[in-house]
């Protein structure tokens, strides 16, 4: 792996920033270089939030990524804004619980993740971001699953109840991502 860039986008409160940070923490655990860059600007509550994470074996140049290799979108405005920006041959993960459209692009792999549904089924809507994050890791293997799990336990392990829910969602998301990539190149519906 030379360098992987992934953009995380959604409403404020969906855990988009945290998902990106968990990935970045896990990258450090694996001895890689990482940059986490948030969008910051004047925003209202419930407004859009996004961040980019770059993971690389080499020294990282630009923290600004115009065309990432992957985008993980949590809501419709993010889908509209960022799905056209993904590099050709890249990956798009869509929160299909809230986004009822799919991309017209035939040069990216699209994975539909019913993230809100998965989180609710496991017991808490708070785990939505973990569903998206683990599906991304399942699809890309940018970091190892067990390292991601260790990060989750370190950073979000205080509330035992919620940790159990997150663990369950993480496994389900990871498996969804893995399975989806077996049909890579095609539209993948989960």
């Amino acid at each position: 792996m030379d360098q992987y860039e992934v953009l995380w986008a959604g409403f404020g409160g969906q855990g988009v920033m945290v998902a990106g940070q968990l990935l970045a923490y896990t990258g450090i655990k694996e001895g890689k270089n990482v940059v986490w860059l948030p969008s910051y600007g004047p925003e209202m509550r419930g407004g859009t939030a996004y961040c980019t994470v770059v993971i690389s074996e080499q020294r990282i140049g630009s923290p600004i990524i115009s065309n990432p290799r992957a985008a993980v979108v949590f809501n419709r405005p993010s889908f509209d804004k960022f799905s056209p920006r993904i590099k050709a041959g890249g990956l798009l993960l869509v929160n299909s619980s809230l986004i009822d459209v799919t991309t017209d692009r035939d040069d990216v792999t699209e994975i539909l993740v019913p993230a809100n549904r998965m989180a609710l089924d496991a017991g808490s809507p708070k785990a939505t971001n973990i569903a998206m994050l683990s599906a991304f890791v399942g699809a890309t293997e940018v970091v190892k699953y067990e390292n991601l799990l260790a990060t989750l336990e370190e950073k979000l392990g205080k509330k035992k109840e919620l940790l159990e829910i997150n663990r369950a969602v993480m496994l389900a998301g990871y498996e969804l991502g893995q399975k989806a990539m077996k049909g890579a190149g095609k539209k993948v519906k989960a």
Partner: protein
Amino acid sequence: MAKILMKGNEAIAEAAIRAGATNYFCYPITPQTEVAEYLARRMPEVGGVFLQAESEVAVGNMLFGAASTGRRVFTSSSSPGISLMQEAMSYIAGAQLPCVILNIMRGGPGLGGILPAQSDYFQATKGGGHGDYRILCLAPSSIQEAVDLTMGAFATAEKYRNPVMIVGDGMIGQMMEPVEFPDDFDAGDPSKNEEWAATGAKGRKARIIKSLFLDPLKLEENSIVLHEKYEKMKVDEVRYERYKINSKNELMIVSYGTMARICQTAIDELEAEGISVGLFRPISLFPYPEKELRKEVDAKNIKTVLVIEMSCGQMVEDVERVVQGVKPVKFFGRTGGIVPSPEEAKEQIKNLIKKPTRAKKAAAKSTSKRKRKD
């Protein structure tokens, strides 16, 4: 110590603590408020002073007062707040006191915006306040470098008894990167400050710390002392980095801070296309790496120098001063919070190095709007 993931603002704040800063004065302003938030918690833990002032004007004068007692003083702000501190900067430099200031730059002028910019270069390097004084100014391009420079800044400020300013654009403050705080860092000994500080005159003659010299000969004398310090900085404090500079380079970029990293990506991508470009990155903005830059520019293979900044063209004036017309110096910049992408940088480079064919001329024309007109 193991690497940890930290936001730039918080990492710089921790670096100040580890370097022995004991007095921090501030007034909140985006995009650096996390420094204040972090130090509000951390300063009391080390027995230091955290004080949120009523304005940046007050912050500047609190720095002046606390610095005169020999304590390690620190403040952070962003462009409009730094402007309000300029009177104090002039007084602090005139009275020969050490302090460290962090400016996480945002777009200006005036209240401007809150997004990243490098448009305070003139203010930081040419003196934002009045009088014959300079501020030693350092520009990191990564969080680790920001930590290293901040940790060293206090000892440097004390060595010269002069303010040291760290300038970063909003990205340096906001992004997270792995950092390592060195365990065995020698941050110098602030107790030496007692040789000149106002510590209470019991048993010794009172010391007067001031910048007022009504006798012109005394004032000239003070200015010469300052001037000599700045000349010494030009010898001992120059810092820079060379990236992929070699005899195959057709063009050399000069860029600093986060912008330089964006240029690195452009250079790496052009290398893959068979185009060789080098980058000269000044780390100390004052003292400017004059001789070092000139040496690289004088290399036979360098046909053009391209300066890229997040401003309408400020550092480019220093580059022109150094290059003295021996090679063409071109400029590209975006401002107002817009950050040039590696793609934009690549386009600029390609326009400059290709033999101008008709198609290229047309392309150059379409991008010339953003170029500085001299």
